[in-house]
């Protein structure tokens, strides 16, 4: 029997709900709090309040890969008046490395962040948190303009290694997606979450921020209606047709084009991925299952289909007197 695509996608979303992994989420939140405190203790006078900037803050998280980001906003002169972004990045890296590496976590340098992967606990849970150091543009201005420069440790897209022009207002980014998602009544969030599920299943793909922005752009550019499959299909078509040329201004800094986080060949691959996917699903509904996989850890219970309002026996009820509060 052909797959009911809507039902399948509903199940994909349901099985990836964050609250199904509440215990793991709680551990992430606790660790993030601990790291935040450690940073605040170490950089008492040079750090503004660290804040959360990952998908949890944007309500677009999926439970198979938590992207928990902690932004650490430093003062302009935190590493000396001639201190560089690299000095900032390396200083934070060294601090986290000395504190956690080999003791309870693996600490590594990543594109613009420092990744902490904690050892599995007794439940087999692994907590992963990315710390993103950023520096205000001018001394004392952060609290007003919320703008930060990030250090690019590793080349990605058109951003060269060592570049220091990746500046953004992360608060505005989080707000952009939140506001938008609210206005579109969940559809945007659902599509973003499905695209993340697709990316995680494939093992590679554009960064989440790119997927978020291109989804929002699709909603801005096309009429997106119908059931969840019809909406997803329209967005996939939009990505297929526009991935190579689209411009995705960073809501935190319109001078940044988030499309630049992908190289031209990565964009071509993305477009052809979408093309193949759409062709295959059009040929056979069942193919949707291999692109958008249910999280087998939390399958949508078949039993659910069996649930019924129960009747114990024939006849009228005689409900007991009762007290309600």
């Amino acid at each position, binding site marked *: 029997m052909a797959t009911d695509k809507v039902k399948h996608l509903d199940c994909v979303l349901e099985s990836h709900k964050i609250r199904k992994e509440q215990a793991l989420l709680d551990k992430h939140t606790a660790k993030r709090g601990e790291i935040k405190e450690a940073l605040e203790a170490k950089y008492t006078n040079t750090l503004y309040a660290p804040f959360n900037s990952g998908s949890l803050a944007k309500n677009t998280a999926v439970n198979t890969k938590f992207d928990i980001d902690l932004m650490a906003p430093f003062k302009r002169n935190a590493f000396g008046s001639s201190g560089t972004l690299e000095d900032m990045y390396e200083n934070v890296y060294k601090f986290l490395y000395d504190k956690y590496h080999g003791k309870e976590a693996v600490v590594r340098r990543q594109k613009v962040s420092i990744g902490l992967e904690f050892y599995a606990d007794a439940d087999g849970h692994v907590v992963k948190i990315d710390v993103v150091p950023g520096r205000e543009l001018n001394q004392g201005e952060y609290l007003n303009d919320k703008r930060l420069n990030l250090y690019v440790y590793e080349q990605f897209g058109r951003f060269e290694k060592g570049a220091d022009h990746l500046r953004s207002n992360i608060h505005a980014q989080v707000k952009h997606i939140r506001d938008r998602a609210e206005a579109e009544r969940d559809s945007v969030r659902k599509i973003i979450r499905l695209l993340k599920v697709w990316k995680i299943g494939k093992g590679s793909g554009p960064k989440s921020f790119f997927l978020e922005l291109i989804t929002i752009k699709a909603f801005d550019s096309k009429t997106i209606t119908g059931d969840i499959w019809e909406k997803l299909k329209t967005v996939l078509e939009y990505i297929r047709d526009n991935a190579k040329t689209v411009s995705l201004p960073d809501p935190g800094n319109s001078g940044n084009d988030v499309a630049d986080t992908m190289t031209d060949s990565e964009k071509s691959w993305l477009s052809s991925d979408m093309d193949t996917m759409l062709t295959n699903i059009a040929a056979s509904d069942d193919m949707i299952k291999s692109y958008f996989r249910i999280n087998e850890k939390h399958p949508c219970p078949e039993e*659910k289909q069996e649930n019924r*309002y*129960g009747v114990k026996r024939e*006849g*009228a009820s005689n*409900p*007991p*007197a009762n007290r*309600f*509060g």
Partner: protein
Amino acid sequence: MNLTCKDIGLRLEVENTLLEQLYNTGMKHYPNEFGGLLTGHYSEDMKTCHITGTLLPQKYKSSRYYFERGREGLLEKLEKLYHAEPRSIYVGEWHTHPDGEKGPSDTDKQAMQTISDHEEVTISCPVLLILATSPRGYTPGFYVNFKNKLYEYE
């Protein structure tokens, strides 16, 4: 309105006019709580509960924070509904939370469990409607007691 309890896959249908009626009844007792029985029927596949009416208690006690529903006279009315054409049956309970939340209190959860377990109740999944009321309007919360747990419909 049509609601689904996603966690267990059961559905609920209720007319807005009935909700209006319950709200108006509740407001006659405001700021005290008030409530009664919900009557209706199940769909053929037993997956949807249609709430179609209410029976109000003859005897009750209430304050701002509790509502005690008596049972006097209700069985006769429920038997009449049971033998009517089309048949209606007891499907659950409703009460107001004046100036309160639509969520169930621990007392409410306990009451629903007592009802599920009660010998003289012939259904096993009674529905609970809580109307959070104020002079400005109301917010309904719908719940079902299924296998010893109260689930909310969305």
